[in-house]
């Protein structure tokens, strides 16, 4: 089940669109069908030697456009590092990364407290030099669709945790980038809200299709939402299992197939520590 490890001497980072210089197996056909392609990616923090902390060791994974790829693993297995590599916030020490332009939704919502919900959602548009009026109008148009109607002018501190995550997700969506990197988006929510938000995210992505890399420590969440689940080992993270989830949506946590796949992922985690 573990994928083949391929380390490359020369780390490279290329946009998926113009990935002509990428590795040999990336012929024209596969490039077109891939939104995320990681090959043998390794990342080590700190000085090399005794103090070096390896975060990722030879990680390979792929996602096709429109797919939802979930990455699960124990705490500290380098999941956040993985997303920052995909977003181009860090460079790998080895291996190659080719992905579509990606936007990060960090673990904490990081909404700006001085902006209203609608202005927070429209932040990416304002950064792209869209006028304030038009940015607001475009964000406002999605508020009702995302279950946020009536909260346009609320400040972040007036919103509940779940609502804040919705606004943060809308901000991510409005960046217009094809690849969304979600870092444990519901990790800080209570169980009931988390369940609601998982359902909400599934519904939203059905209406607004994007390629998504969802990092989570919740195996059930991964199975409920993803097309494919990649299971990472403990630090340094490496891929120990990949599960294809070919189940109809919407899925329910009590479905027999969901339960079975969840058990398989948990088994992989338990046996390959």
């Amino acid at each position: 089940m573990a994928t083949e490890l391929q380390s490359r001497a020369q780390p490279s980072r290329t946009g998926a669109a113009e990935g002509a210089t990428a590795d040999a197996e990336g012929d024209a056909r596969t490039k077109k069908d891939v939104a995320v392609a990681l090959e043998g990616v390794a990342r080590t923090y700190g000085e090399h030697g005794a103090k070096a902390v390896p975060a990722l060791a030879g990680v390979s994974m792929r996602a096709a456009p429109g797919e939802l790829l979930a990455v699960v693993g124990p705490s500290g297995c380098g999941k956040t590092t993985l997303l920052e590599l995909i977003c181009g916030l860090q460079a790998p020490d080895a291996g190659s990364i080719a992905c579509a332009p990606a936007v990060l939704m960090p673990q904490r919502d990081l909404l700006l407290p001085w902006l209203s919900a609608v202005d927070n959602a429209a932040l990416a548009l304002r950064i792209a030099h869209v006028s304030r009026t038009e940015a607001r109008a475009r964000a406002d148009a999605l508020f009702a669709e995302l279950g946020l109607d009536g909260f346009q002018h609320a400040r972040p501190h007036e919103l509940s945790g779940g609502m804040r995550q919705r606004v943060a997700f809308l901000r991510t969506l409005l960046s217009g980038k094809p690849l969304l990197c979600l870092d444990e988006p519901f990790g800080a929510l209570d169980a009931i809200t988390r369940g609601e938000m998982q359902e909400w995210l599934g519904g939203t992505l059905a209406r607004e299709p994007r390629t998504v890399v969802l990092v989570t420590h919740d195996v059930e969440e991964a199975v409920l939402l993803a097309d494919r689940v990649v299971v990472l080992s403990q630090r340094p993270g490496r891929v120990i299992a990949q599960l294809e989830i070919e189940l109809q949506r919407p899925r329910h946590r009590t479905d027999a197939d969901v339960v079975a796949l969840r058990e398989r992922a948990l088994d992989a985690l338990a046996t390959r520590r």
Partner: protein
Amino acid sequence: MSARPTHALRARNGWGGWAPGRGAWAPLLLSAALLGAWELYADFAGVQEDLLPAPHAVAAALWNNGGLVWRNFAVTAEQVVLGLALALVSGFALAVAIHLFPLLRRAVYPLAVGSQAVPIPVIGVLLVFWWGFGIFPKLAVIALICFFPVVVATVDGLAAVDPEQPKLLRTLDASRWQAFRFAELPAALPAALSGARIALAVGVIGAFIAETSTPTTGAYSGLGREIMTDAGGFQTARAYAATAVLFAFAIACFYALGLAERKLVPWKIRPRGETA
């Protein structure tokens, strides 16, 4: 989840809880008690009037010299307001420069600290040599005394942005300037205003120092000059009257800044007990 509890937000501001109306009796009561004690002490403890005039004598001096005190006050008030404005603008600009260019921080910070130790009379003559007997030397002195807390507070505020925030902004393709404009600058405003409050508290005494260390020509040279002249000329009651005016002016400025704060950083104004 309450939608918009705005009326509850308006009742308090985070730093003092002072609002006209409810709760205004507390400072008035305390002031009345202190004035009463002062009056009794001055009347019955056998202190000479030239040493400590009683409140009623101070009030009488203010009443009898209203025109003189008012004209001198106008001079001083203009200096305080303009000097503070200069301090806020230059302090904020210096803080932003220090934030954006770390080398500048290492170069400028020690000098800014040192500048606070310079006794103003030492440079007063030079300032007059440069700018004459007008208002500019005074503004320079007030700004020199007041800019430092603005710089320190603003630099800290600019650096206090969540370290994850730049990452998010980078994936949203924000430039360095946009990261500053959308995240760091607004985040630093509350701290800058805290610095401004400290600056304001020393601004009035700054004007006093400015007036007494740089000579002025003209009929009215400010309350600071007047106080020094009166205190040396056995006009103690009038010196106290002028001091009382400065006292009230400092308080008025402080609350004016509080009102400005409500307009500038409304997201910081929360009902009591609620935190970030």
